[in-house]
């Protein structure tokens, strides 16, 4: 297994104000690789989606902790792991369906996973009901 050239581990409380903290921190870390403007924008968006999911759905706006881990490798692959210990997802396949949302306010688009899937090269979501969510994303920079 190849070793990461560098990595970052960040733990943030599940406060909505930390959505921008998370994406800024990941952006600063990935900036070491001189990504294009589009690449950094895509990564920021994907991170923002995953962290928002943890805050809104995982912890239901309650107290919790979100883990954000970022690594990069010599071939310019960036791997991002975002985990929470929230309520988890009973049906991951359904949750990842575009436009699906459990939110009833009418203000959520249900496009979070679609954004992650489109903006990153790969996306894995691991979860069971009551067991939190683990999101793994990869993007190989040009």
């Amino acid at each position, binding site marked *: 297994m190849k070793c990461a050239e560098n990595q970052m581990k960040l733990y943030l409380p599940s406060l*909505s104000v930390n959505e*921008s903290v998370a994406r800024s921190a990941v952006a600063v870390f990935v900036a070491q690789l001189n990504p294009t403007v589009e690449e950094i*924008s895509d990564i920021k*968006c994907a991170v*923002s989606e995953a962290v928002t999911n943890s805050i*809104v759905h995982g912890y239901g706006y309650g107290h919790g902790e979100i883990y954000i881990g970022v690594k990069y490798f010599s071939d310019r692959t960036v791997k991002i792991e975002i985990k929470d210990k929230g309520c988890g997802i009973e049906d991951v396949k359904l949750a990842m369906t575009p436009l699906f949302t459990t939110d009833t306010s009418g*203000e959520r688009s249900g*496009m979070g996973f679609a954004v992650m899937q489109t903006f990153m090269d790969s996306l894995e979501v691991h979860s069971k009901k009551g067991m939190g969510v683990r999101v793994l994303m990869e993007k190989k920079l040009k």
Partner: protein
Amino acid sequence: MNTENLIITFERGVLVAQIMGDIDHHSAKFVRDKIDMAIFEKKPSLVLLDLSSVEFMDSSGLGLILGRFNTAKELGSELKILSPSRSVKKVLELAGIERLIKIEGGYLL
């Protein structure tokens, strides 16, 4: 009406809501109520969401836009999006927003 990241103006039946900075779940909640209040108060014939100063938007911005579209529609108002940046337009086009809401100006992908 001004807040740190929102300027709302109204003239000749047109309400312009200029949003600045980032639109994410955190910031969306601050602007949506203010825009809705302005729409209900002014009852414009046209609502323009000016995104020219939006530096970042994730799917929470889609929810914000669709929610305002529905609010405007309730009152018989038209809603358009103005001048999204390249990165913002990428999110809009992923959702196919242009099939529902006209986008004017901004970056052509």
